[in-house]
């Protein structure tokens, strides 16, 4: 009976098999590709992905060109619901993580009104053990929610990854934080410090 069924639907079965095989192969082959809607940055011993609609700029926080041990990159999109995604790094270990996040927020405070900064909570985001802090930025009377996560890399650097977007909730920030941190890869320094 099964044989008769297969014989009757042989062509359909062949079509399905080919479709599954080709599609499965493609999914497997592209499993490590940059996801759609994102771009990848690589340089200074680190790489990460950020939303494709953001334009990446260097030296927004520290006003100095990034190097392996100190630097920052910030992606910004424009429009009514503009988004900011940034990665800041410095030499340091896990013990200085909270201070480093204070420094980053302190730099941001020079140009923005930042309120409602929450206490640090230890979380696993994007497969990394990180300290996470929520905050709000006042933009023309509207409080835009943001998140910043601190993570210490094995080679002795501390990273702060932050996300905020006008008109978005915590979900969006948490999602982007997860994406950036999950994709964040670091390399050993080119020469000893």
């Amino acid at each position, binding site marked *: 009976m099964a044989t008769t069924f297969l014989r009757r639907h042989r*062509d359909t079965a062949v*079509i399905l098999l*080919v*479709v599954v095989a*080709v*599609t499965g192969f*493609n*999914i497997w*082959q*592209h499993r490590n590709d940059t*996801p*759609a*809607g*994102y771009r990848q940055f690589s340089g200074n011993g680190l790489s990460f992905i950020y939303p*494709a*609609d953001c334009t990446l700029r260097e030296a927004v926080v520290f006003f100095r060109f990034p190097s392996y041990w100190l630097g920052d990159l910030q992606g910004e999109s424009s*429009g*009514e*619901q503009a988004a900011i995604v940034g990665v800041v790094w410095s030499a340091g270990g896990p013990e200085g993580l909270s201070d480093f996040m204070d420094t980053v927020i302190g730099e941001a405070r020079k140009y923005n009104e930042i309120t409602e900064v929450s206490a640090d909570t230890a979380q696993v985001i994007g497969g990394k053990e990180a300290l996470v802090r929520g905050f709000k930025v006042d933009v023309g009377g509207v409080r835009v929610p943001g998140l910043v996560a601190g993570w210490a890399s094995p080679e002795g650097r501390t990273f702060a990854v932050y996300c905020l977007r006008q*008109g*978005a*909730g915590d*979900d*969006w920030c*948490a*999602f*982007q934080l997860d*994406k950036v941190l999950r994709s964040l890869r670091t390399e050993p320094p080119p020469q000893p410090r």
Partner: protein
Amino acid sequence: MNISYLVHEYHVKGMASASAQETVGGTAHGAHRLEFIDFTRGIVMAIMAWDHVSGFWNQYHHGGEGILGRAPPFVDTTWFLLRFVSHYCAPTFIFLAGTVLALSSKKRLEGGESQREVTLHIAKRGVILLVLAAAIESPAFSNPWTYFGVISCIGACLIIFSVARRLPTKVILLASLLIILNHSFLDLSFIPTAPNWGWYLRIILHEPNYDRWPYIGLYPIIPWVAVMGLGWSLGNYLSGKSAEDVKGLKRPFAVLGVASIVAFVVVRWLNGYGNLVSRMGNTLVDWLYVSKYPPDLAFLLWTLGGMCLMLALGIHIQGRPWFHGGLSGILLSFGRNPLFFYLVHLWLYRARFPDFAPGAYRPPFYLGLPETLLFWAAGLLVLWRLCLWYEKLKRQYPKPILQYI
């Protein structure tokens, strides 16, 4: 105006010509057995009219979902849903264009035309669509004639199908499924973007983009020709089916529609393969915000699934005595004249002179939602009467260029 009376009058006078219906002759295998196709197309034409009138006159209406992987945000959920509902239009329009093309090609061959004549007819229709897109569609959207929109895309697909139709249906079905499931992996980076021809070629083939005026486009051929291929396969399956056979398709269409929507939920939940715009949270907008430019798998599962449900509904009601009257009668008249409706509705709703400067799309003033809905409904009544008039004209002059529109 008594709409039911007017629809009734139209049918009593025997003006009913058809696209899907006309292509199969109507009586060979049971009268009106394929009117569910025109009914479905009529629904999406009416929805499409909403999308365009809103785009022309509403401040918070926008599109561009998925261009370069971007997800331009909407001001609120209402405006998102008012746009989202229109996602059914292009896939249904293009899918059913393939279905009707298969049915009409078969009819022409059975009517004694040679393969060469049929090929030439389809290719000519494709070229005419390209010309109409450049001359009528593009200026309606304040775009240059080079804009590669939905009509250009269908025109190009028709030219492809004028030759590809000679392939066995199963090969077309296989190729279509492979393209739909795998086009997101396509890498066209070997085509240089520095020269304008390379940039434009990539837009036309697979990468919708609005960045380098006038080389802009939203409907690339590669994914959409596959949607037309699926429709073509359905058309070949339908040809020769009796009225009873067609009735029996109601359940398979309904099951396929539901299965497709369930698959959409799974694809969005997994949030990887099949999503050219990632789900960034768990709100309704996050779940439904999919890539239309180009159409990702999630987009096609949702829209073609919805189309299957509409087809099932059409089969369910097409035998009813009231089917040709009232609202369904109006929708049928839209569905029988899709291209005429498309070209006329753009300018009817645009309601202002053409302009060709970038960014001149903005109206002289914005309408609120209630006024726009009123404008939409009034426009549909005007379009309905125009479609009836156009059908009459086609019957009076069956041979000239009207047969291509």
